[in-house]
C-alpha cells in the first residue's frame, strides 16, 4: 500500500502506527454493529420506530468514529495536547449547559439536545481530561516547581463537580479511578496514595450515607431481595440461557425485556445469543488492548506519552470491566456503556478520540532519552515531530 521509503504523511503514519491495535479496534467497532443488530430492534419496536432505527444510526456513527480514530492518530503530541485543551474546555462548557437546559432522562440530567442529536458532554470530557492530567503530572516530573499536582486536583474537582449534580455516579467513580491510576503511574509516593485512597473510601461511604440514589443501588446489590434488581437479574439469566455457544443470533429473549439491551446490557444480549465463548473472546480482546497499550506505555520513556497512554487505556479498560461486571452482577448497576460495542454516538466518538490519541502516542518514532531531569534533556525531540 505504502512504500517504506515514501515520506508522505499517510505513508509515514502507516509504517509507524500500531496496525495490530488499529485492526483490533476496527474489528471491535464492526462487532458492535453486529451486536446492535441483535440488541436494538426490540428497543426500537418498543419505542415505535423502524426496527433497524438504532442499527442504521449505529452504522452512521461508525463513519465519523473511524474518521476521528484515524484522524487523531495522525496528530502530533503538541496537537494532541492542544486538541485536548479545546475539547476539555468545550466539553466543560457543554456540561454546564447540560445542567442548565439538559434533558432529564430517568431522573438524571446527562443529555443535551442540539440539532436533533442528544450529546452526552461528559463522554468527550473524559479522554481530554485524561490527556490534560497526564500532561500536568508529566510536567511536574520535569519541572518540580510547576504546581502540576495542584492543577490536576483542580481539574478533577471541576470535572467531578459537574458530574455529581447530574447525578452520574458511575462516571464519577470511573473518573476518580482513572485519575488515581494516573497519580499512581506518575510515581507518587505511597503516602499520598494512601491518603487519596483513604479519601476515596471516605467519599464512597459518605455518598452511601448521604445520597439516597447511591445507597439504593448498593443496597440492592448487596441484598438482591431488597428491591428491584430486575435488569441485572435478567442480564444474569441471559448468560445462563446462552450457555457456552449461545442460542443463536436472533434467538435471544432477554433483549425483549431489557430496556437498555442495546446500550448498557449489550454484553448480556451477546451472552444469550452468541454464548460464553464469544463473550470470553470479547473479554480477551479488551484484555489484549489493555496489555498492548500498557506495554507501549512501558516502552515509552517520555513521561507525557507514557502517562497519557496509561490513563486512556485504564479509562477504556476499566469502563469495559465495570460494564461487563455489572452485566454479570459482579457489581451494582450503574449507567455505563461497553466501549466500542454499545450503541451511542457520544460514547463511540469519545472512544474513537481516546484510542486515536493512544495510536498517535504509540507510533514508532525516535525515542526521547530516559527521563533524567536536567538541562540537557533533549525533549524537543519528543515534543516536536519532524
Amino acid at each position, binding site marked *: 500500500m505504502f512504500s517504506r521509503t515514501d515520506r508522505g504523511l499517510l505513508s509515514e503514519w502507516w509504517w509507524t502506527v500500531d496496525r495490530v491495535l488499529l485492526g483490533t479496534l476496527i474489528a471491535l467497532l464492526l462487532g458492535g454493529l453486529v451486536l446492535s443488530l441483535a440488541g436494538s430492534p426490540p428497543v426500537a419496536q418498543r419505542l415505535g420506530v423502524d426496527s433497524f432505527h438504532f442499527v442504521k444510526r449505529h452504522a452512521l456513527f461508525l463513519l465519523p468514529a473511524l474518521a476521528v480514530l484515524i484522524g487523531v492518530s495522525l496528530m502530533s503530541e503538541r496537537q494532541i495536547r492542544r486538541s485536548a485543551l479545546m475539547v476539555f474546555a468545550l466539553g466543560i462548557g457543554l456540561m454546564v449547559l447540560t445542567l442548565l437546559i439538559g434533558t432529564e432522562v430517568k431522573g438524571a440530567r446527562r443529555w443535551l439536545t442540539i440539532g436533533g442529536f442528544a450529546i452526552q458532554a461528559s463522554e468527550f470530557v473524559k479522554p481530554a481530561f485524561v490527556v490534560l492530567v497526564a500532561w500536568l503530572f508529566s510536567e511536574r516530573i520535569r519541572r518540580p516547581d510547576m504546581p502540576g499536582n495542584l492543577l490536576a486536583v483542580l481539574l478533577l474537582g471541576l470535572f467531578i463537580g459537574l458530574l455529581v449534580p447530574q447525578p452520574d455516579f458511575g462516571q464519577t467513580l470511573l473518573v476518580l479511578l482513572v485519575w488515581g491510576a494516573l497519580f499512581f503511574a506518575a510515581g*507518587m509516593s505511597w503516602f499520598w496514595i494512601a491518603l487519596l485512597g483513604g479519601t476515596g473510601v471516605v467519599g464512597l461511604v459518605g455518598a452511601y450515607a448521604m445520597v439516597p440514589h447511591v445507597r439504593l443501588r448498593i443496597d440492592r446489590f448487596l441484598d438482591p431481595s431488597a428491591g428491584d434488581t430486575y435488569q441485572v437479574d435478567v442480564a444474569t*439469566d441471559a448468560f*445462563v440461557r446462552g*450457555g457456552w455457544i449461545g442460542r443463536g443470533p436472533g434467538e435471544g429473549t432477554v433483549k425483549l425485556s431489557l430496556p437498555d439491551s442495546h446500550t448498557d446490557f449489550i454484553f448480556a444480549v451477546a451472552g444469550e445469543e452468541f*454464548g460464553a465463548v464469544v463473550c470470553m473472546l470479547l473479554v480477551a480482546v479488551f484484555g489484549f488492548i*489493555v496489555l498492548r497499550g500498557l*506495554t507501549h506505555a512501558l516502552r515509552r520513556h517520555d513521561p507525557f506519552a507514557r502517562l497519557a497512554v496509561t490513563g486512556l487505556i485504564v479509562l477504556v479498560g476499566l469502563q469495559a470491566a465495570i460494564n*461487563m461486571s455489572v452485566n454479570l452482577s459482579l457489581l451494582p448497576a450503574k449507567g455505563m456503556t461497553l466501549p466500542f460495542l454499545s450503541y451511542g454516538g457520544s460514547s463511540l466518538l469519545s472512544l474513537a478520540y481516546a484510542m486515536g490519541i493512544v495510536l498517535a502516542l504509540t507510533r514508532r518514532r525516535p525515542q526521547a532519552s530516559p527521563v533524567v531531569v536536567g538541562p540537557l534533556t533533549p525533549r524537543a525531540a519528543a515534543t516536536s515531530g519532524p
Partner: protein
Amino acid sequence: MTVMTRIASLLKPADGEGQMRARLIFAMAVFMVVYGAIGVRLALLATMPEDEIVRRLGPGEEVSHARPDLLDRAGTVLATDIWVPSVYAEPHRLVDLDEAIEEIRSVIPELDAGKLRKRLTNERRFAWVKREITPRQREALHRLGLPGIGFVEENQRFYPARQIASHVLGHVNIDNQGIAGLERHIDDSWLGALHAAGLARTDPPDPVQVTIDLRVQHAVRDELVSAIDRFDAIAGAGVVLDVHSGEVISMVSLPDYDPHDPREALEDDKINRVTTGTYELGSTFKAFTVAMALDAGRGLNSTYDASAPVRSGGFAINDFRGKGRVLTLPEVFIYSSNIGTSRMALDVGIDNQRAFLRNLGFFERLTTELPESSRPIVPTRWPELTAMTVSFGHGLSVSPMHAVMAGAALVNGGKLIPPTFFPRSRAEAQELARQVIKPETSDKMRYLMRLNVADGTSRQADAPGYRVGGKTGTAEKVVGGRYTGQSVLTSFLGVFPTDDPQYLVLVMLDEPKALPETHGFRTAGWNAAPTTSKIVKRIAPILGVRPQFELDGMTRPLQVSY
C-alpha cells in the same frame, strides 16, 4: 534503616525508572486479574443448569397472580386456580379494524361493537379484547388468523362448590385479587404483600385450610334452602360453631351468589347476613338475660312475678300466651316470658346489665377474618324501658355472629372465644379465651337450654339421641320505623349435645310465613326450631357426635342436680 528514614522513603516520589515500570506492570496484573474474574464468572454462568434461574413471568402471570388453593377442614378443594386463555389486540398491527371487530364478534357475540372499536382505536399498543375466554373460543379466534390478535394464559379462580360457600370464601376480581370474604383476607394479610414484593407469582403458594366442612356447609345450606322454600321466607342464615375452639364449621347466608360472577354479589339481598347484617334477635336474647341473672347469684328457684304486665315510660310489656302467674327462673326461660326477663333486668340493675352485655362483646364490632362486618346498633340512652326491651332482644341490634360467639360462651364453661375461619386447636383457643360467666352459670344454662327443648317452646328442635338444647326467638320486624306485626324474624340458638356441648347451631329465617301445618303460627318454634333439628340430624354424624338414646327418655334432665 531507622523508622524515620523508612517513613522518609515512603514520602519520596518514585522517581526511578524501575519503580515506574513496576507500577505499570502492577497495573497490568490488576487488569488481568479483573478480566480473569470476568472470564471465570462467564464460565460459571455458562455451566449453570438453566432450571436454576428464576422463571420470569409470562404476561398472563403478570396480570393474574397465582393464589393458594383453599381447602376445607377435610382437605376438599374449595377454591383453586385454573389456566384460561385471554385474548388481546395490538391495535397498531390490525390491518382492517372493521373486519377484525366483525370477526371477533362472530366468535364472542356478547362483546359490544362500539366499545370494542373504542378500545382498539386508541393510542395504546395493547388492549384486552376479552379476558378469560373458553378454550373453544380461543381456538375459533385463532383460526380466524387475524394479525395483531394474541392470547395469553392467565389464572382464573375456580370454586368447585360454586355458591355453597360463597359468603365465606368471597371472590376475586379479574386480576385474581381477592375482593371479598376469605379471599380478600388472604390478600390483605399476606398474599398481597408477597405479590407486591414480586414473589410467589408463578407457583401457587401452599394451600390454605379453612375451618369450613364442606359436607356440613352443604347440609346446612340444603336445609335452609328447603326451609326458606317451605316457609316462603325471604332470606335465611345458619352457622355451626365448635364451641371450644371457636372454629366456624359452617356459615350460610341465603340468598348467596355464584362467586364466578362477582356482579351477583353486589345485589342488595346478597349481603352476608351472619357478619354484616344486624338484627334484633328477639327472645333468643333471653338466654343471655337468664345467664346474667344466674351469674348475678340468682338461683334456679328464684321467682319472678309475671301475673301482670310491667309498665315503664308509658309502655306496657306483656307476654305472648303468658301464664299470668309467678314464674320460677326456669319457667321464665322455657315459657319465654317477656315480663320475667324484664323483671330480671330490673332486678340485676341497668348498669350491671350493660356491663354484662358489653363483656359478652355485644357493644363492639366483631371482627373475624372476614372483611365484612358491621357495628352493633346500641341504644345511646338506656332508661328502664330499654333495659327491659333489651332483656328480651329488642332495642339492641347485633350480628348473628355476635350471638354465636356469646352463645358458645353460655355453654362451654363461660369462655368467650373469638370465632375464626382458620384452623385453631382447643389449646390455642383457651389462650385467646376470656372468662365472661362463671362455669356454674354455664352448667345451669346447658340444663335450661336442654329443658327448653325437652319441655318448652323449642320441642321441635330436638333430634333424637343428640340432646339438643336451645332457645327460640321471634322478633317483630321494624317496618318504616315501627313494629307493625306484619313480618317476623325467627331464630334458634341451639347447642348439642347438651351433656357435653360440642357444637352450636344458629338458624335464622327472615319473614317466614304461617302455614296450615304449623297451625297458623309463624313463631320460631314452628320453623327455625324444626330446621335446626333437621340440620343437627344431618351434621351430627358427620361431625362425629355419637347419639345416646337412653338419655332421650327423660323428658326433663333432672338427673342434673342443682
